[in-house]
């Protein structure tokens, strides 16, 4: 699997977050914490994770979800899986 660019992931994640919780995609920047900065609850994170799986073609197990605290964490996780594949 080819490496997905950081910008592609950020853009994709921004679209997902805007669709699911209504926060503008432009606010979804790498340093943001989903819970503290974007005020996203745990069930919404489940929805976002499922949508991210569909968009980027990677599985995010529930055990892994709690480690994905910031937008950058998701970028790293998706790129890390892509690198391993």
């Amino acid at each position, binding site marked *: 699997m080819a490496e997905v660019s950081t910008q592609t992931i950020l853009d994709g994640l921004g679209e997902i977050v805007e*669709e*699911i*919780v*209504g926060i503008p995609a432009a606010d979804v920047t790498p340093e943001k914490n989903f819970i503290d900065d974007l005020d996203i609850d745990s*069930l919404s994170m*489940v*929805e976002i994770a*499922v949508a991210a799986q569909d968009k980027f073609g990677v599985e995010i197990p529930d055990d892994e979800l709690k480690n994905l605290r910031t937008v950058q964490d998701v970028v790293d996780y998706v790129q890390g899986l892509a690198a391993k594949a």
Partner: protein
Amino acid sequence: MGKTRVVVTGLGASTPIGGDVASTWDGLLAGKSGSRTLPWDNLDALPVQFAAQAAVEPADTGVIPKPRMRRMDRCQQFALIAAIEAMKDAGYAHGDTEGLTIDSDRLGVVLSSGIGGLHSALDSYDVFKEKGWRRVSPFTVPMLMPNGSAAHVGLEFNATAGIHALVSACSSSAEAIGYGIDMIRAGRADTVIAGGTEACIHPLQMASFGAMRAMSTRNDAPELASRPYDKARDGFVLGEGAAVLILESEEHARARGAKIYAYASGVGYSADGHDMVQPPEDGRGAAKAMQRCLADAGLEPEQIIHINAHGTSTPQGDVAELAGIKKAFGDHAYRLNITATKSMTGHLLGGAGALEALVTVLTLRDGLVPPTVNLENLDDAVDLDIVHGEPRKLADGPAAALNNSFGFGGHNVTLAFERAL
């Protein structure tokens, strides 16, 4: 006396006739039918190919932000839209609208649905079968639970006196209003957001009510299908939408100078003890609900001038209700102006009681009884005065009315309203 009197201070609705109270009421006075052919593929698979769908799609109102809409069943969307309209109408603050801020602990919600989030349950099951459990929305349970609508409205207005969702099929939201009246009488709340909602116009419901032979099959003329008391009636028409009444203690409403639509004077309940889905022919269960309602409201039968009937357009139900009215009122039954709102709105099931309570309140306020439409040849068994053709003017002055709602399971609920003078 001692009993706290309860008044109606706000109204909200999203119905097959209009997206709000004003357009719904205008449409009802104009005799408008909400029944239409369904815009679906594969209609040939269904015994009934029409219904009374909401006049305005929830998404088109812009009232609820899109991300929140995704987590709400359609019935919950209707409920919240109607509740926001009603609370604004009552003069309470909401969003950018200025108004009175209410003490949360004195605000309750009683909002019913007969069926609950049917679309959400079935949609999620489709997702599960096609894609597995991980793709099922984590909001599926709050979307399908029948108390979900009450909970959404309670959260919107931070109502902490209590949130309740009574379920009794097609009398659910009449029961909700009755419970709301009792909440205020018991001193549990000053204000109660009370109503009902339903959104189950789904192929499964068309098939299952069709299998019961309960719905009209007049597929070639949907607008003529709901025809209570007419010789050619052949079943009800399924509708969807929501209606909400703001109930308030008279003392609280007067102290804040609220506009008062009417008194919500009382409620009567009974059960048929007869059959799961059929009423007894003599309407004895309905009669008991009406008699108990009069007693609860402290009204004499002769004070009632109007009945907004349950009248669903089924062959048995319509005449059984009229038999019950005669049993409860004796000779006075012949002086009552009776109408059946479902001739225009179709049957909103768990939303019907609240919608018809709302219509009864407006009937008293404006002194105009909306007509029963499609009544061309009166059933030979009907000898009471059914208002049809055009709206009928009621006399000015003191006036009281009843509103009947009956549900599968043998539930009977009657509400009483009095004109505010």
